[in-house]
């Protein structure tokens, strides 16, 4: 690659990264600022202070919320992995009547606006006695059309011969699923895992609706709790909370970026 091309490329990359990262950088900066500075619209704090973080943690039980978010995200992740992979397995390795139709129905669920189903779902969850428990935050999300789709694409790349070889060897379907299909699809499972962890971590309205106290509430609610309506919001504190909320997912993303990319692509194009 010629030097000029390299220079052009790096400038483009740098500019784009500046553009993409600025909001995040800005949030970081504000989280270190004191009241007046923020309203004056400064970009860099005069002095870095952790006071905002301290008061964010004092005002709402952020640690508890972080734990809840983590727990809920992890459970949803595992649940989605299990349920989606079971479904994808059936779609790929078993033939039964109406398979394609059911698959189409599965995919069509992606088009149902979640907001439209919220009230009936709330009533369902309430009738099940799940209000204010982790169940209501997790179980309804175990089935995921996108995940089923992604894994189905991956499972389709597993050579049919592996399945046949295990049939000849007399291995049960479930054992094949458990001992072969899942381990072989590790990358895709990790991808889906990261994806579902991230999306669950970021849920807001539903957790608010079905939880009643801090023992099960998630961190996005904490974020909301720090903003007031009729009286002034302390922006520094809110930004500190924003940072606390996004940090775990950003770290997860940075660690899993490569895997996520490979896995998602596999689902997208085959």
């Amino acid at each position: 690659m010629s030097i000029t091309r390299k220079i052009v490329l790096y400038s483009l990359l740098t500019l784009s990264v500046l553009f993409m990262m600025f909001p995040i950088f800005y949030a970081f900066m504000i989280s270190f600022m004191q009241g007046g500075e923020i309203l004056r619209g400064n970009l860099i704090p005069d002095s870095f202070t952790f006071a905002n973080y301290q008061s964010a943690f004092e005002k709402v039980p952020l640690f508890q919320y972080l734990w809840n978010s983590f727990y809920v995200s992890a459970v949803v992740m595992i649940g989605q992995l299990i349920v989606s992979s079971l479904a994808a397995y059936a779609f790929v390795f078993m033939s039964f009547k109406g398979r394609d139709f059911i698959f189409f129905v599965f995919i069509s669920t992606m088009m149902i606006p979640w907001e439209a189903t919220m009230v009936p779902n709330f009533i369902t969850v309430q009738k099940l006695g799940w209000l204010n428990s982790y169940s209501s935050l997790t179980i309804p999300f175990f089935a995921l059309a996108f995940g089923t789709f992604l894994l189905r694409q991956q499972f389709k790349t597993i050579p049919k011969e592996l399945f046949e070889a295990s049939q000849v060897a007399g291995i049960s379907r479930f054992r094949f699923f458990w001992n072969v299909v899942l381990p072989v699809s590790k990358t895709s499972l990790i991808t889906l895992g990261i994806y579902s962890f991230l999306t669950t971590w970021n849920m807001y309205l539903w957790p608010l609706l079905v939880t009643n106290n801090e023992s099960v509430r998630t961190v996005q609610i904490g974020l909301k709790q720090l903003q007031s309506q009729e009286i002034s919001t302390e922006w520094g504190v809110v930004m500190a909370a924003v940072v606390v909320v996004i940090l775990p997912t950003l770290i997860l993303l940075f660690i899993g970026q490569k895997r996520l990319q490979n896995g998602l692509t596999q689902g997208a194009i085959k």
Partner: protein
Amino acid sequence: MKQVELRNVSKSYDGKSQVLKGIDVTINPGEFFVLVGPSGCGKSTMLRMIAGLEEISGGDLYIGDVYSNHSPPSKRNLSMVFQNYALYPHLTVEQNILFGLHTKKITKAEQKKRCNETAEMLGLSELLKRKPRQLSGGQRQRVALARSIVTHAPICLMDEPLSNLDAKLRSKMRSEIRQIQKRLGITMIYVTHDQTEAMTMADRMMILHHGQVQQIGGPIDIYNFPSNTFVASFIGAPPMNLSQVSFRDREIVLDDHRAISISEEMARSIPIEERIIAGIRSEHIKLAKGGKVSFYAEAVNVEVLGTETLITFITGNKQWIAKWSGQWNISIGEKLPLYIDCADLYLFKQETGECIWHQSNRHDQYSLKEAIF
């Protein structure tokens, strides 16, 4: 060792077109039986029906005298080696070899023993802890083989197990597989589309074409006495040279009016009115020495392959190839005097391709005793 018998077996995937038609064959216990044919002729389908991976649409399958049309694969007591080996990529060689043995109710100790034995036999002992992706093609092939041997199943099915290997390795594996099969006395049903493999490995082979059996027999018999033009051109490299011919008394005339004189006996056996195709193996087109020239031809391509030379020339609108042993320094365009012994000719009916005449014995068949003394 078990016998496998197919009685009038047929297969259709879509209920309309028949992929296999009326297959009748008995594979003897301990036999190395090769199924050969061009791509898409139904070889895999037949193998998979024997394995129980594909339903049988018509006819009966007997495995060791037991009617087995409907028994599940695991109950047929056979093992299978797939073209792409179907190794489990996440398991080690050892785990791959032992995968599924537990279903046969074999103790851990016995499993271990068998695994070591098999690995020893196939030279895999050093590799037991590796993953498949850390193995070369030939090693993978051997793992697949080991996995099938370790089950001690009396019947082994293989679907083009060598086609992913390079030429050198392939020829090595050929003899390895053959030796193991003989040692263990397994009944082997082996699919390939490579005629060299078929020729060198088979006790008997079956040639399939368009889902129909063309010929069943020992490799040499099939090479020497192909039952029709398809078999004649499919078996043998380069393939048998074939051309439509007509007759003039005691002469066979090619379509460019070149002629080969034939014996009286042969002339008598030919039904004059039929449209006939004549065939000649490339090794039987010889350089004419001492004036015994059948015709002259101009070399259009010459390939010198170490110990033999392939010379391509045109007769009528066909390219024929002559194969001479030794390294021949022939330039393209050179005129060659060629001689064909009429005894080496094959004659086929044009419509059906059926062989209507061939010599009863090849004259280049030798046995040691005759040769030495």
